[in-house]
């Protein structure tokens, strides 16, 4: 993001430079032209790949553009050769905040129920994934026999394509033929209709996502663990610290920089975790496990596609995550974290 700041600084400082002798800007250019030249490719690439689509998306959210009204005229070539074109009677137009009003007031789609589902889903996934990842990382950081094999095995879920695991988990939770209900029946319990209830259905998705997310946690936290100097543990042991005290007072603070980054990333990823919900619960029962991204997909991309509605959802999701990131950073800064 450093280029963005560079880019922004120029207009900011421009007024000050106006009062300066006229040759100064020119002299700065003469002196630093190579710096500008170096930065240009990055600025262009970021502009094309990031800022233009972003700006376009934001603009579209203020229009009523759909697949049906995107063309000013609809042309149908006839098989016999001629081309008939008709003016599209309702071409797209600027509608201001209509999309936001309709989405936020619940007239279109189910924004608020999906928002709460997304929050519960994100918090549950991140907390469980982080805890399990931390536990396994601490275990694997000790010298045990076959550590290499364990490490490889635990990272395996990462190597499996996400949709394959999603399908497997969905089938494992199948009410009639799934392995989970088979086990429950084998130990004499009642089978559970996993997808018939919002919370059990969400649980299946959370379990899948935890299974998929733990390897990332293990890898990053293991990296963090190896960075903690062994002397600290030695000193703590000499001082008579119990294992729990060592974990609480040495490991956790030592892992803090890694943890904070990992938690932020994991939150953002889980918030936008499309495939797991889309493939495991498929929003069942009756759309009650839909999170914001999958809800946006269904609202905007089933049947005639609604680009403006999709953009509106996109901007709303982006805003939520932006607000979260800003508060998160501020909280970190208060605790003296450099990040």
């Amino acid at each position, binding site marked *: 993001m450093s280029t963005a700041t560079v880019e922004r600084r120029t207009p900011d400082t421009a007024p000050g430079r106006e009062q300066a002798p006229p040759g100064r800007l020119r002299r700065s250019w003469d002196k630093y032209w190579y710096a500008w030249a170096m930065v240009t490719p990055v600025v262009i690439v970021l502009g094309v790949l990031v800022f233009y689509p972003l700006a376009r998306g934001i603009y579209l959210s203020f229009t009523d553009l759909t*697949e049906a009204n995107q*063309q000013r005229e609809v*042309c149908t070539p006839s098989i016999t050769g001629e081309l008939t074109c008709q003016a599209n009677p309702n071409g797209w137009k600027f509608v201001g905040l209509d999309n936001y009003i309709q989405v936020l007031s619940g007239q279109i789609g189910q924004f608020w129920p999906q928002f709460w589902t997304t929050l519960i889903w994100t918090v549950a996934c991140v907390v469980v994934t982080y805890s399990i990842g931390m536990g396994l990382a601490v275990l694997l950081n000790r010298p045990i026999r076959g550590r290499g094999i364990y490490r490889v095995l635990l990272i395996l879920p990462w190597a499996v394509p996400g949709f394959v695991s999603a399908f497997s988990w969905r089938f494992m939770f199948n009410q009639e*033929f799934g392995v989970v209900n088979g086990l429950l029946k084998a130990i004499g319990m009642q089978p559970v209709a996993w*997808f018939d209830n919002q919370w059990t259905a969400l649980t299946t998705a959370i379990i899948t996502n935890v299974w998929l997310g733990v390897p990332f946690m293990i890898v990053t936290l293991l990296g963090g663990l190896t960075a903690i100097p062994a002397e600290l543990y030695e000193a703590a042991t000499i001082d008579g610290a119990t294992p729990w005290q060592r974990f609480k007072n040495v490991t956790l603070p030592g892992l803090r920089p890694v943890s904070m980054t990992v938690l932020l990333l994991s939150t953002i990823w889980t918030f936008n975790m499309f495939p797991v919900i889309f493939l495991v619960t498929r929003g069942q029962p*009756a759309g009650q496990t839909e999170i914001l991204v999958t809800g946006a997909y269904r609202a905007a991309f*089933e*049947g*005639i596609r609604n680009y403006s509605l999709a953009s509106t959802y996109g901007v709303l999701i982006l805003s939520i995550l932006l607000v979260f990131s800003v508060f998160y950073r501020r909280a970190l800064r208060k605790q003296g974290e450099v990040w």
Partner: protein
Amino acid sequence: MRTRSVGMIATALAVVLTAAACGGNDNSGSGDTKPATDPKSLSAQLTWWDTSDPKNEGPAFQELIKKFNASYPNVKVDYQSVPFADAQNKFKTAAAAKSGAPDILRAEVAWVPELASLGYLYNLDGSELLKDESDFLATPMSSNKYAGKTYGVPQVTDSLALLYNKKMFEAAGITAAPKTWAEVKTAAAAIKSKTGKQALFVNSGGYFLLPFIYGEGGDVVDAAAKKITVNGPQAVAGIKIAQDLVKDGTAVKPPANDAYGNMMTLFKEQKVAMIINGPWEVNNIKSAPTFGGLENLGVAPVPGGSVKAGGPVGGHNYTIWSGMPQEKVQAAVAFVKFMASAESQAFLAEKVGLLPTRTSAYDLPGVKSNATVASFKPVLEAAVARPWIPEGGQFFGPMDKMAVEVLVQNKDAKASLDTVAKTYKSEVVKDYSN
């Protein structure tokens, strides 16, 4: 839009250039006004997206292509099997980008009005394909019409039917398939007490509940009057019948997820005696080792309600992408014509049990002697046309939700249908009245 006009100019240029190229090309001398020239001289490369089941139906289509190539050796057909669930979106993306779309698409009946309204399909009026239009069954053919023009020819038609296990019916002492939902209840009681197995499985999908709505004389919308009727008294009465079937145990309570797959597995393993499903599963049932072949499969029209009996008409059409260059038109027309011919349809009917869309195909010996196809004939005669509007594909998202709410979670039918109607009004057919 700017891009659009560029595309138009390009298309116009292509047309002009093609015409010029054809004029200069004098290998036959007879000109290009006569479409039925020597099939061997026709040379082109066509892509076809087939959305049929790659295991059950795909091989038969590939065999047909081989037959086509016997008479048209220089038309190469690039057969691509595209999963049905993704095909529509993939096609729309490619067609909007004007590249990568197949020349020929097997489009589900509800897709055609939508794709046509977007200008993605060739208008087939005046081509050879529609010369014998009257031979096609009227209801499937109607799905190809949009704003007075025709955009496809029917490949296969289908409708929902009552599929039942003959052996289980026999064991329960049932001699004739039930004709109404009330008769289904009596039959179910007999099946459950005599065989100890489940009686009926109604899939918790909006499409599969349409027979219940039709049975009471309702429909999703009234396209002619521009009115949403999905929460009207008839529709509510129909959905309540379906709900009652699950509530009193006549039907298995479907799971919210994978209900369709469970339904098929239970039926193939002879654990449920009746299902509501279409002819597309016949081949799958036939090849299931646990079921006992076609002799064990009974087919009857979907049971009726208080007004009539009928399932929604389904099926697929051959459509030609409007972005296909004009010089390929002859080859594409020849290919579609071959695939939609009565002989090809008879071949598919014999091979995989697909139901022909031509009246003349039903008179061919291969079809006449096919018991399964014959048993579907009354089903097709009762089939109800769906509202052929571009928004047709969007009706089922809200309906599916409703189906799960009513059948699985046992919510109030009227309240659920009111929500569907509200969604239709705010998101699908905004200019319709409630």
